[in-house]
Every structure is written in C-alpha cells, then in structure tokens.
C-alpha cells in the first residue's frame, strides 16, 4: 500500500529557469502531464501542468502579428513565471489512501513524492492510483472469478468463509465485506477465487451456511 511501490520513477524535475516552450516540448515528448519545478539545490518550488502551459500560449483567434509577439515573449519566459507555487506532496512511505484523499480533496492530477530531505524522488498521478488499485483488486487477473455472498448476519463471516475455502483447498485472493448502506440493501461479501471450479466454491460456501447471490441491478427506465 506504500506509494514507493506504485509511483513513477525516476522523477523528471525541471529547473525554474527552463523556458515555457522547452517545458512544453519535454511534456509532449514524454507524454507527461505534470512536471515538478526545482531550485538549484533540487528543492521543490512549484508544479507545472500541461494545462498551465496551454493557457500561457496565445489564442489562435488573435491576429498573426499579435501571436508572433506573444510567442517571442514566451521564448524568453521561464516556467517560474507561470508555475503553481502551492502544491501538495506525499512521501515514499505515504499510502495509497493518503494519495487518494489528497488527489480527491485538492482536485489535482498528480502529487510529487519527496524524500525526507525534500528532494523529488517520484511522481504519483491519478493514473498511477488507478493502476495500483487495479492490481490490488485483481482486475483482469487471468484465471479468477468474483463471487458475491450475502452476509448471513451470524458472527465471524469472513473467518468462516476463509476456513471453509482453505479446508476445500480452494485458492482465493481477495475477501472484502461491505456493510449495508444507501447503495447496498444487505451487507455483502465479495470473494475473488482463483479457480474455474465454481461449483466447488458454491458448495463449500453453502456448507458454511452462506447464500451465493447473482449480482443484479435494476435500472430505472430513461
């Protein structure tokens, strides 16, 4: 769950003196959307995004002459003139949860990852977060299936499920229990098994007193 395992490295940071066109070219060539800006000592002083760079460029509806003047001006302008100086960071030992809360609350697309000395060691973007959770939830893991089980309300449901699966030597990789809430009318257990023998899974769960349900959704007509 640590950011260190999921961040993009090495971190590509740029000096504050880099010009806007140079930064734009770098972003485009690397298909990045965020660049940390550092001072001479490597300390983070700002963030620049593809959106910041786009808005620095003149609008195409302006006259050719005006655009030319603007572009000439941009050629001399350092990124420090347009970078965002307020930024949010995480450390390699921060967790995916920390990053999710920050990305969600601050509505930013990426977080620079700083070591104890304040040096940029990586970047963690929303894409990295998606990839991390994809791996954690086993999405697209070839050879698995997800079973939905109704929580029967009796004590220790997860213990009972893992015990019966282990007794039957059924491989499973995820066991998640979700309480009843507005979106879910019954407490529900999601189980990712690593087998095709779903009959054996169902029989084992039945033996432990659980009811396997077929997940359905009723959509209101448009």
């Amino acid at each position, binding site marked *: 769950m640590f950011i260190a395992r999921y961040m993009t490295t090495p971190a590509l940071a740029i000096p504050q003196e880099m010009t806007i066109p140079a930064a734009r070219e770098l972003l485009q060539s690397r298909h990045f959307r965020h660049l940390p800006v550092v001072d001479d000592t490597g300390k983070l002083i700002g963030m620049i995004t593809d959106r910041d760079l786009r808005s620095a460029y003149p609008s195409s509806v302006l006259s050719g002459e005006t655009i030319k003047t603007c572009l000439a001006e941009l050629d001399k302008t350092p990124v420090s003139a347009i970078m965002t100086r307020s930024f949010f960071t995480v450390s390699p030992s921060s967790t995916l949860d920390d990053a999710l809360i920050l990305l969600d609350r601050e509505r930013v697309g990426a977080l620079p990852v700083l070591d104890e000395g304040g040096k940029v060691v990586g970047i963690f973007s929303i894409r990295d977060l998606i990839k991390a959770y994809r791996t954690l939830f*086993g*999405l*697209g*893991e*070839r*050879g*698995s*299936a*997800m079973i*939905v089980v109704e929580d029967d309300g009796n004590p220790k449901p997860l213990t009972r499920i893992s015990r019966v699966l282990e007794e039957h*030597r059924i*491989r499973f990789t995820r066991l998640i229990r979700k309480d009843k809430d507005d979106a879910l009318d019954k407490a529900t257990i999601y189980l990712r098994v*690593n*087998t*095709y*023998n*779903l*009959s*054996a899974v*169902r*029989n084992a769960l039945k033996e432990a007193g659980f009811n396997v349900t*077929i*997940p*359905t*959704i009723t959509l209101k007509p448009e």
Partner: protein
Amino acid sequence: MPTLPLTVITDPLCHRHDTGGNGHPEDPARLTVIAGRLGQSPLAPMITTMPPRPAERQWLTTVHSEEYLYRFEETTLAGKSYLDHPDNQLCFESYEAALLSAGAGLAAIDLLEGGATSRAFCCARPPGHHAERNLALGFCFLNNAAVAARYWQQAHGRRKVMIVDWDAHHGNGIQSAFEEDPEVFYLSLHEHPTWSFPGTGWKEETGLGAGKGTTCNIPLPPGSDDAAVMKAIAEQVEPALSRFVPEALVICAGFDGHVADDMSGLSYTTALYRQLGHCAARWAERYCRGKVLTLLEGGYELNSLAASVEMYLTGLATPEP
C-alpha cells in the same frame, strides 16, 4: 420435417480423460449423457458418428509452443495429477485424449470440405477455449478451436475464419491466438468479466495492430436470459458477420450459460439453444456454402447439457419455423 444429416465426431478415449472425480465439473459423464440423449432423440436416424484422428504436431504448433506440448505430455506420463493449476486435473491418458479432442476438428473440416457433411459437431473433451499458447487454464489443455481455424486456413485455403463462442465464459485462449490476425474473427458472448471466470473479455478489446476490428467481446450481465442473447445477436453478431464475410465458420458451443448450470450466473433456457442452432445454420448458408463446424466447450450440469445439445443440433439440422 426435413432434416439435414448431422455428423458427430467422438471417441471412447475422450471419456478416459480422468479429472479425478470429487465432483470435478469437467467429468466424462458429460459425453455419456450427450450420447445417451442423442441415441434416444428423433434426430438419431440423421446422425452419423465418425472417429476423430489425433491432431498432428504441425497443426498443434500453429497455436502452442513445442515446449508447452512437451511439458503437457511429460506431466501426463509422469503420473502427475494436474497441469499449471489444480483445476486442470489429468491422468495418464489425457494427452492422447487431448490430441483426439483437437484432432476432431481437423477430421470434421476434412469431411466438411470433402462434401461428406455440412453440419459437424465435435462431441469431444477436454474442452479448449481457455488454453493459451503456453498455459493450461480452466480445464483446457489444447485450444481446439484455434487449431481448427489454422487448419482450415492452411490445409484447405479458407482464409477468413469466423469463430463464434457462446460458452458462458470468455475464450481467452482463442482471443490471444488471433488478437493480431485480421483473417480470424473471434466473437464471444459471455458473462461479464467482473463476475465471471477467467476475468477476461472486456468490451473495449477489439483486436490489436493489424487485427484491430476482428475481435468482438459481448459481455452480458449476470442473470441475462435468452432475450438478451438474441438481442446481441441481432444488433452485434449479425452485423459483424456481414462486415467480415467469413469463408469458414466455427461455433464454440458451451452450454454452461443454462440457468440450471451453476458454473455461471447466466439464465438461459434450453429453448435458446435451438435458436442458436438456427442462427449457426443461417450463417453457414449465407456465408460458408452451408458448412459449419461446432466444437463442444463447457456445460457441466448433466441434464441441461444433454437437453441443450439435442436442442442445438435440432436447430442446426432443421429449417427455422
């Protein structure tokens, strides 16, 4: 009612692929119940039973690596009980059975191309559509459909092969074999991968590189019924066929989407399989000189399996009402 002759390719050795009992779903009884049902069926007089031949190495290696074939054979000869995952139970004779299961398609294609039959059903096991180039998965060892498609292309010169797979589960092995190949179209209708084994077959996957546009996944939500399948056929499968214009047609027939089969959450009735038989016959007539090859994939609840196979073959061999 006029009925077309049907050829069923099967072999007693396919029954000897022993998956260890203990309630393993892919059991020899699957073939026994189908044979019993067809023997009692009004279709019986129209059925000719033919033996398969073992698939030759040169055709197996169009899909699988030499190293994998060797590993598979060694595993059976060494008396081990499974290959790659405990799901894939096997016995001493499983390699021979798998060669026949893959070879059934080849024998059937020769009969179809030679004009001996126009409707061939390979009633063989182990099934094939989960098997990958180097991996046994989901009770499958050799990818019967993929080997058949390559054979059809290379031994009989039918370049454009369409594989329609309506087993309840996605045929990951077939998709990976042809993902980059514009001449083999893989189309699969299956339970949505969020819930279903093997967790592959997303709608967004449509092929790679030169094969872009010749993979089509139609995931169906759990609980989907006959109407959902027929809607997908009308809106997605038939347009795909008419765009691709196949020269050869392979149906991967799995019967585990039946409501009585607990290997999926789909809710098909027996009657759907008759409609699927009519569809396959119609596509064969329209595009493939009336010829269609059907391979048995899954289907594990014995009563619904036997009834659904009979229903499918009825649809395949009799005119639409």
